[in-house]
C-alpha cells in the first residue's frame, strides 16, 4: 500500500476537547408566544380574513351605496336574519339534497363504468371514448337540454350534476386502477381473488388515493354547477335552493342578503373540502402511508 501511484500526504492525528452542552447556554430555547402564533396556519389565515373584513367595511362605508355594495356588518346581519328566519337553512337543505342525489348517482355510474372498463377491453374503449367526449363539455351547457327532457325541477338539476360528477370521477378511478402495481395484482390473485372480489379487495383500496382525488374534483364540479344551475332557473316545485335564494334577493334588491347567500355558498364549499374530505384523507390514505400529510 505504501507504494501507490498517488502519494498520500502524511498528516498528524488530532483529538479535541468538546465543550459541554451546558456551557453553551440554552441549546433548546422555547419559542416566544408570537413566534408560535405565527407558525399556526389557522391563525395566519384568520388574520387575513379579519383584515379583508375590515377593508370591506371601510370601503363600503366610504362608498355608501348599500344597494350595490353593502357593508360587512349589514351582510352579517342579513346572514343572521336568514338563518334566524330559517330561510337559508331551508334553501341550503334543498340544494344539498339535490346535490347528494346527483353525486351518488354519478358515483354509482362511474363505479360501474370503471369496473366494466378494467374487466374488458370493450369497456375500456367505451370509457376512454366517453370521457374524452364528455369531460370537456361544461355540465351547465346541458341545462337547456335537461329542461327539455325533464322539465323544470329537480330531475333536470340531478341530470346536470350526474354529468358533472361522472366523467371526472370515472377518469380518476380508471387511471387509479391502471396504476395499481403488478405485484399487488399478482398477490391478490395468489390469494384466490377474482372478478368483483378482486376489484373490491385489491383494485379499489389500492387506487384509493386517485379515487379520492376524483371524488374531490367531482364534488367541486357538482357544487359549482348546481349553484349556477339554480341561479338560472332555480325553482323546483316551489322549493328553490341556495342559488335561487341569491337570485330572488337580487330581484328584490336586498343586496346584503345576496352577499349573505354567497358567503353561505363559500362556507359550505369550504367545510366539505377542508373538513369532510380532510377527515376522509386522514382516516385512509394518510394513515396508510399512501399520501403524505
Amino acid at each position, binding site marked *: 500500500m505504501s507504494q501507490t501511484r498517488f502519494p498520500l500526504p502524511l498528516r498528524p492525528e488530532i483529538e479535541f476537547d468538546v465543550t459541554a452542552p451546558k456551557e453553551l447556554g440554552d441549546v433548546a430555547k422555547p419559542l416566544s408566544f408570537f413566534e408560535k402564533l405565527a407558525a399556526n396556519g389557522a391563525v395566519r389565515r384568520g388574520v387575513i380574513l379579519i383584515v379583508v373584513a375590515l377593508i370591506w367595511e371601510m370601503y363600503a362605508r366610504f362608498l355608501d351605496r348599500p344597494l350595490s355594495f353593502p357593508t360587512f356588518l349589514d351582510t352579517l346581519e342579513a346572514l343572521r336574519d336568514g338563518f334566524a328566519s330559517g330561510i337559508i337553512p331551508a334553501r341550503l337543505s334543498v340544494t344539498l339534497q339535490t346535490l347528494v342525489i346527483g353525486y351518488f348517482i354519478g358515483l354509482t355510474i362511474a363505479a360501474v363504468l370503471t369496473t366494466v372498463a378494467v374487466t374488458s377491453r370493450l369497456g375500456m374503449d367505451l370509457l376512454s371514448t366517453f370521457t374524452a367526449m364528455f369531460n370537456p363539455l361544461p355540465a351547465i351547457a346541458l341545462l337547456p337540454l335537461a329542461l327539455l327532457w325533464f322539465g323544470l325541477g329537480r330531475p333536470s338539476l340531478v341530470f346536470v350534476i350526474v354529468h358533472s360528477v361522472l366523467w371526472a370521477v370515472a377518469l380518476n378511478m380508471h387511471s387509479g386502477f391502471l396504476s395499481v*402495481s403488478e*405485484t*399487488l395484482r*399478482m*398477490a391478490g*390473485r*395468489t*390469494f*384466490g*381473488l377474482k372478478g368483483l*372480489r378482486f376489484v373490491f*379487495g*385489491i383494485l379499489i*383500496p*389500492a387506487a*384509493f388515493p386517485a379515487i379520492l382525488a376524483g371524488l374531490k374534483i367531482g364534488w367541486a364540479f357538482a357544487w359549482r354547477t348546481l349553484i349556477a344551475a339554480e341561479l338560472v332557473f332555480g325553482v323546483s316545485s316551489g322549493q328553490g335552493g341556495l342559488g335561487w335564494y341569491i337570485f330572488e334577493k337580487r330581484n328584490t334588491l336586498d343586496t346584503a342578503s345576496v352577499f349573505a347567500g354567497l358567503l353561505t355558498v363559500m362556507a359550505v364549499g369550504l367545510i366539505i373540502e377542508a373538513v369532510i374530505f380532510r377527515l376522509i384523507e386522514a382516516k*385512509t390514505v394518510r*394513515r*396508510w*402511508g*399512501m399520501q403524505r400529510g
Partner: protein
Amino acid sequence: MDQALAKTASSAPLLSVDGVTLQYKTPDHLVTATYRVSFDIQRHERLVLLGPSGCGKSTILKAMAGFLHPVEGRITLKDRVVEGPGPDRMMVFQEFDQLLPWKTVEQNVAYPMRVNGIGAQDAKERALDALAKVNLSKFADAYPHMLSGGMKQRVAIARAMAMKPDVLLMDEPYAALDALTRRKMQEELLQLWDDIGFTLVFVTHSIEEAVVIGSRIVVLSPHPGQVRAEINCAHLGLNERASPEFAELTGRISHMLFDGQNVAH
C-alpha cells in the same frame, strides 16, 4: 436434514415441472424464456432455482404460481395440472409493495385466510402465530409503510406460511435487502423450515444463497433457460460457508453457469 430428505425421496413428487417451454411477448418479439425444463419437488424439500439474469427462473416460478401457461409441457401439483393462481401455492415476491398498505400487519397476514373462508377468530389466531414465528408480534397493529424492507418481507413470508400452502414460492425475496439483513433473513428462513418443514421453491441468482438455502439446486443455463444440473446440498448451510466443501460446490456451480469463463464473483 438428510434424514428428512431420505424419508420422502421415494414418494411421488408433490409438484412436477414436466418439459415446460415458456414464451412471452414483447412489443417486437416472441421470446422463449425456458426450453423443455423438467424437475420434481418432493414434500419438505427446499428447491432452489439458480441461474444468471434472464435465464427464465422467475418465469418458471410464475408459471408454477399459475400466472403463465406453458406453450409445451405441463406443471402438476399433486397430480393436478396447474391452471391458475391459487392459495395452495402462496408466493412471496421480491418487491416490498406486495403487502396491502391499507391493512395492518395482522390484517395483511389474515386476509388470504379470510378470502378463503377461514373464520375471523381462527384467521386472527393463525396470523398472530405466524407473526410470532417471524418475530414481528410487536408490529401486529402497525401499517406496512412503518416497517423496514426486511420486516415487510418477513410479513410477506408470515402471510404465505399462515395459509399453510402445499408449496411456498419465493421469487428472489431477499434481493432488495442489504447484505446483513439478507444473512439474518436466510437464517430465519432455515430456522422456520426446521420448525415447520414447509416445501419451498426459491429463486435466486446468488450461488452462495442457493447453497445456503437449498436442499437441492436446479441450475439453469443462460437464456433460454434449460436445466443444466440438479445438485444436492442439504448438508451445506450457513455454518458451513467457510468449509472447503462449500467453496468446492460454489466453484463447481460457477463453472457450470459460466462454462469456465473467468468470471470474478
